[in-house]
């Protein structure tokens, strides 16, 4: 532990460690002798420590606890306090520890000093718990006045002259650290002195600026960014933080020179005056939502509703330019940026839609194509760019044609996918003249007959690998392009017919794959995991086994897929496409339709109530002029391209009346994109146009109708992907070999769906949001039940999620979902910081600034039996890091019960060659900043359940951010707490909370 002490003679600040205590030291400045003892354990000091802790992470600051940290140093303490007795009587909270030279701030004792007479007695404003000492006093709402009043008396004449150069970097707070802080030398540093260019306020310049400036903005608090001359919203928002931290003496940190009470009081008065004099002006600066463009999800959903088609089939959406996020949210108007890339991408989507719709007419007259196996693989490909490579007969084997029986069936033993070359996409891609794949975009029915051979014998499980599991039969995967469109379990030694309808783009082909097949590279290496089960070939020539031996051997002995009667039929004209055709053309054919009418009708819908003669004119006259185009289809396509690129479609126009409330139309749009993530329907627009929607009762009824609609999946998706932050799933996947189950049971997909069904259930059934922290149920399908270790997982349906009671208390609530636990790990290790931050940000809507530029990142070292926790604890105990880390690390420690993919664990395996298999027990105990200790996650959840109010505040704030498409600022605080307190009356039920948000004045204002 390092201590800060001042020279009793000249007040030079020193940082001391234990070894400097109880011995004579010489001051480097005044050359006088100093002697310090560690008097830290005096009762008064203890109280101060205990009470000092605030509980930032879990709960809001406990305002019942009032404290003022002792005034650490007044350089010239020559004037004794006059009215020390009156201090005690007028304000019993303040304890005066002033006995001769007994110490200035409770735990510092001056002894053997020649100058006791000059050492003035500074009153110690020790901290105390009001609840204990002053039970009759009400909870102070204006704490400053109460603290400061008597202080002023006491300190009337005490002067403060703090030398700036003695400032030493210190954190916000310095509560007792469990871990030993690195010992630091007492040698005084020569820090750089910072002074503001424009003086702000005497006390701020002296006491705050040193750490909060453009050079080092601790806690992301930078005074140079603020404007005190003419307050802006940003600075205004910080005033409250400043007042709070000075009042509760969080700032300056206790080991820094403290302003006198008088100065503090003066500063607070100044800040408050600043606040009140600017209040009305600032409130007029209430942030408005910047005009938002539709983000990817909104664009996609709008297209779904506009054209009646499934946007997931549109290949033009696959490589769509990325959205810009503001924090977690994708619909912030300021962040969302229009770009030339986007404007280039919209017409492509439009073209694809028109082509799809056109396919209904075009494909109707086509005779369905039927292709029958066997497909003769193409042996040579003429390829202009691949001179180095020619496919040889051996490669044909490699692709699995060994065992080929002409005209009957085909056996595959290799794991590489076998492309049916007649349909191969890669063949068509690489040679421009090759006409592979299907001739038209559309639905095709693929039929094939298959069976499995040489399945893993009973009792054999190859643990390290995903697919080889005796319990699972062999399977076949069907690829279209690069995507697996279907996977089926195969019967053993018995042929069965399989059928699927898939959507294929023009020129796309199909491929089959046996995931349990032989991996070609095994032939070259020794690490063939199946060798012990299926054996190895004998060398045909010479002494070593060559690759050809392997090819011949595995084709007969290893897991094999037998495939026959492959048929590709299509394109089929689907009923869904006919609906889309109807929606666009109103029953006419492309030839007979009028492009002007079609585009006019489409604009009525696409502009969401804002279509008028003027804005329709440009597009209608462009699309309606036949000389611009070859034919009507082309003209309609041109019209749709311009409509989907039009600002009237792409931007959410929001207009307000003179009071600042949204007009009916704007409200309908905002509401619809909030709950459905898509455009408003006719009912909503009708109410908006008639003017009824802005009536409270109508609005409320609409919100409830919208939540009940299946389209509210849009909000569910947004909450899951953005609020819970599951969109990052898959960015850093875990290792396949270490977590094979994660892949074989498709946990990434399934657990995300688990969370989505969970959220949807809370929303639709209107259950309390406390379920997010802990609930006694979740949603599982067969794979997930297996993953979570439920008994008899085979009783669960495979493709349906069913509500299931929680067996293990650790699993209840979001923090037990594998999706959350995977997304809050990085695929390699579980970092308590990331998981803790997830809890703080998601569940409590609090944010912490990113680590300061000066923070030394942790160089993870797992060579010795060190856990990351021990490294992190060391890091977090460093003063600079502690003030933030203590807000979230403890959540992360408790969540250490779960591994990278969210499996429960009791041991942490230390990796490394020599130590492979070393196990260290997981430590899940954690201490909240307020001193509350918990043993594990179950314990922690019960603590968190008590702070449901804070949780709801956090959720409300985030719901408002999603709903309004802007960041919530200090001016929205009142609105948020008003919603939260009303939600309390509804027992914090989710649908009620959403309704409160959607009917709140904040939501209804621009």
């Amino acid at each position: 532990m390092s201590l800060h002490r001042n020279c009793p003679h000249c007040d030079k600040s020193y940082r001391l460690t234990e070894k400097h205590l109880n011995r004579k030291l010489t001051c480097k400045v005044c050359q006088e002798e100093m002697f310090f003892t560690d008097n830290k354990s005096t009762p008064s000091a203890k109280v101060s420590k205990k009470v000092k802790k605030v509980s930032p992470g879990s709960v809001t600051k406990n305002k019942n606890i009032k404290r003022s940290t002792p005034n650490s140093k007044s350089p010239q303490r020559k004037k004794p306090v006059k009215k020390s007795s009156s201090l005690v009587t007028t304000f019993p909270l303040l304890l005066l520890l002033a006995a001769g030279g007994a110490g200035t701030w409770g735990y510092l004792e001056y002894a053997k000093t020649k100058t006791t007479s000059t050492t003035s007695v500074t009153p110690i404003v020790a901290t105390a718990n009001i609840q204990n000492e002053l039970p009759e006093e009400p909870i102070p709402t204006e704490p400053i006045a109460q603290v400061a009043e008597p202080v002023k008396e006491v300190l009337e004449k005490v002067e403060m002259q703090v030398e700036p150069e003695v400032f030493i970097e210190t954190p916000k707070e310095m509560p007792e650290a469990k871990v030993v802080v690195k010992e630091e030398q007492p040698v005084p540093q020569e820090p750089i002195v910072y002074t503001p260019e424009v003086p702000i306020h005497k006390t701020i310049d002296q006491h705050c600026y040193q750490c909060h400036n453009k050079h080092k903005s601790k806690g992301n608090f930078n005074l140079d960014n603020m404007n005190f001359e003419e307050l802006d919203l940003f600075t205004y928002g910080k005033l409250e933080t400043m007042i709070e931290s000075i009042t509760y003496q969080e700032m300056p940190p206790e080991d820094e020179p403290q302003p006198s009470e008088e100065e503090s009081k003066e500063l607070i008065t100044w800040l408050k005056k600043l606040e009140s004099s600017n209040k009305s002006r600032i409130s007029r600066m209430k942030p408005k939502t910047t005009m938002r463009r539709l983000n990817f999800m909104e664009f996609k959903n709008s297209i779904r509703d506009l054209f009646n088609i499934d946007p997931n089939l549109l290949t033009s959406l696959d490589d769509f330019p990325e959205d810009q996020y503001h924090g977690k949210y994708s619909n912030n108007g300021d962040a969302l940026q229009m770009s030339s890339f986007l404007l280039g991408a919209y017409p492509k989507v439009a073209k694809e839609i028109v082509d799809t719709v056109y396919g209904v007419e075009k494909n109707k007259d086509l005779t369905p194509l039927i292709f029958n196996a066997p497909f003769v693989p193409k042996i040579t490909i003429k390829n202009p760019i691949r001179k180095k490579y020619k496919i040889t007969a051996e490669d044909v084997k490699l692709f699995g044609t060994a065992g080929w029986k002409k005209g009957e069936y085909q056996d595959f033993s290799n794991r590489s996918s076998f492309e049916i070359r007649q349909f191969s996409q890669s063949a068509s891609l690489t040679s421009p003249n090759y006409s592979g794949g299907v001739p038209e975009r559309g639905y095709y029915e693929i039929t094939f007959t298959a069976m499995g051979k040489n399945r893993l014998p009973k009792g054999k499980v190859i643990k390290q690998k995903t697919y080889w599991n005796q319990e699972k039969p062999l399977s076949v995967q069907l690829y279209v392009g690069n995507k697996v469109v279907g996977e089926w379990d195969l019967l053993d030694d018995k042929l069965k017919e399989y059928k699927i309808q898939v959507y294929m783009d023009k020129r796309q082909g199909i491929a089959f794959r046996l995931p349990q097949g032989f991996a070609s590279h095994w032939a070259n290496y020794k690490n063939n995991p199946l060798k012990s089960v299926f054996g190895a070939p004998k060398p045909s020539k010479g002494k070593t086994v060559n690759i050809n031996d392997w090819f011949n051997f595995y084709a007969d002995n290893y897991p094999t897929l037998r495939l026959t009667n492959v048929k590709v039929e299509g394109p089929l004209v689907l009923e869904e496409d006919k609906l889309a055709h109807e929606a666009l053309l109103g029953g006419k054919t492309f030839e007979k339709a009028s492009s002007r009418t079609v585009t006019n009708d489409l604009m009525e819908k696409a502009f969401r109530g804002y279509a008028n003669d003027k804005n329709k004119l440009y597009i209608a006259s462009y699309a309606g002029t036949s000389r611009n185009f070859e034919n009507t289809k082309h003209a309609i396509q041109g019209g749709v391209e311009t409509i989907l690129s039009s600002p009237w479609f792409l931007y959410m126009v929001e207009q307000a009346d003179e009071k600042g409330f949204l007009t009916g139309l704007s409200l309908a749009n905002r509401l619809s994109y909030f709950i459905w993530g898509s455009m408003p329907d006719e009912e909503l627009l009708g109410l908006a146009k008639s003017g009824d929607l802005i009536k409270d009762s109508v609005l409320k009824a609409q919100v409830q109708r919208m939540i009940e609609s299946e389209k509210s999946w849009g909000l569910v998706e947004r909450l899951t992907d953005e609020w819970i932050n599951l969109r990052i799933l898959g960015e850093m996947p875990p290792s396949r070999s270490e977590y094979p189950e994660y892949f074989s049971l498709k946990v990434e997909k399934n657990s995300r769906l688990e969370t989505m069904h969970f959220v949807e259930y809370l929303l639709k059934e209107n259950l309390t949001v406390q379920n997010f922290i802990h609930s006694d149920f979740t949603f599982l399908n067969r794979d997930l039940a297996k993953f979570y270790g439920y008994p008899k997982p085979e009783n669960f349906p495979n493709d349906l999620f069913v509500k299931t009671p929680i067996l293990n208390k650790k699993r209840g609530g979001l923090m037990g979902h594998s999706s959350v636990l995977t997304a809050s790990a990085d695929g390699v290790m579980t970092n308590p910081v990331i998981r803790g931050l997830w809890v703080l940000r998601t569940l409590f809507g609090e944010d912490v600034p990113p680590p300061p530029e000066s923070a030394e990142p942790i160089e993870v070292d797992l060579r010795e039996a060190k856990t990351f926790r021990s490294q992190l604890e060391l890091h977090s105990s460093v003063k600079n890091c502690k003030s933030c880390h203590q807000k979230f690390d403890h959540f992360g420690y408790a969540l250490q019960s779960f591994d990278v993919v969210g499996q429960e664990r009791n041991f942490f395996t230390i990796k490394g060659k020599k130590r492979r298999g070393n196990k260290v027990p997981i430590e899940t105990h954690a201490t909240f900043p307020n001193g509350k200790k918990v043993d594990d996650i179950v314990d922690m959840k019960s603590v968190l359940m008590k702070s449901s109010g804070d949780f709801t505040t956090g959720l409300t704030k985030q719901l408002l951010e999603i709903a309004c498409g802007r960041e919530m600022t200090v001016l929205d605080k009142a609105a948020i707490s008003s919603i939260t307190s009303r939600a309390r009356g509804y027992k914090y039920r989710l649908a009620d909370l959403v309704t409160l948000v959607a009917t709140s004045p904040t939501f209804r204002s621009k």
Partner: protein
Amino acid sequence: MNINEKNIYISRRKSLAGIAGLSAFPFLEINAAAKPEPKYKRLVVVTLPYGTMAQYWTPDQVGPNYNCRYAEIYKDVKQDLSILTNLSHGNGIGHVNAARLLSGVGINERNKYENKNESVDQFLGRHIGSLSRYPSLTLGGGTYSWSKEGVKVPELVGSDKIYRQLFIPDSAEAIKAKTATLKEREMQLKVMENGAKSLSSILSSADNQKLQEYQASILTLKENIFRRKKWMNTTKKRPKDLELAQRPTGSELVENTLEMTYWALMQNLSRVVTVSVSGKTPVKEFGGSRNWHNNTHHGMLPDKIEFLRRIESMAIEKTVNLIKKLKATQDPEGSGTMLDNTMVLFASGMSSGNSHSCSNLPIMIAGGGLKHGNHITYGEKRNAADMLYTLVRNFGVEVDHFNKSNKVLDELV
């Protein structure tokens, strides 16, 4: 609709991806045509996603006589390159901060800057405009190229796509159809402009400001069309000596891309090429786990460090091969070798994957007529942004600042 037309459309669509076409000065080529000497130099940027290992990368001493493990790889061209250490864009950590390698501007602060977090390649590309077929090329997968709109530039990924985009000539039929499409797009842009005007009349001033993004994007698209029309009738050429590996492994993929980069420069398809070695590059050949990212969290485990050493060495080696090749070739446009007129920057936005630190970035600069042969280490006062500004000035763009910097690194010039 006829089938051919559709094929063409697809290829046109593909052709847009990856080409950040922003020609701010579309008419500059008139001046350039009069001059025999090209106005601009060239820039190739090769980036790694997860940094390099400091113990192998950082030279043991400053000056020309330095040594380090990786110096072995580039010893033949040591005189043609410089190693810069202790430069960074600030010390932030994490992949978000790594993304500012080529701009110096973080994603969160981009709104404060005129050109947002525009990366140096896009900035230079904007100045080249229609002087070359593509203002800049963004190959591979990374997060380093950002447009002046603050938007990540789409990349061309995969040997096939790049080859087809750069070197396979269009048929006469395709050119005809493309020309027709461009004409149609021009018409549509006018319609969209009118739409924006009609919207603008009902918007508040703040919203109108937002709408300007839309209008600016239309302008950019117009410039793109101008450039594409200009180059439409210049036939692409298949380089005779270019051989690409089939079904490439990770190292072959890097080699393929750098080979094509060389030919793209030779044919003046572009003067600015960014090659991002993607984090998703197949790495099976380097042993160990199949996942590069997982290995960068090496926790000091020796087998993982060895894996990383192999993959980093590979990337350096392929880049050095490109440098050597440029050095051995006469510049077809100007005097000297290709290397004399081409700057090659090898860098990463992150210094250590293990700690996710973004300070002390690994930076190697070669060629371009700069002063080379030294290991130069900088202190707190210089910033990696100065390195970017040095590239901009040496490239031939006369501006007084680039994003955050207005100082060149004197040691290089």
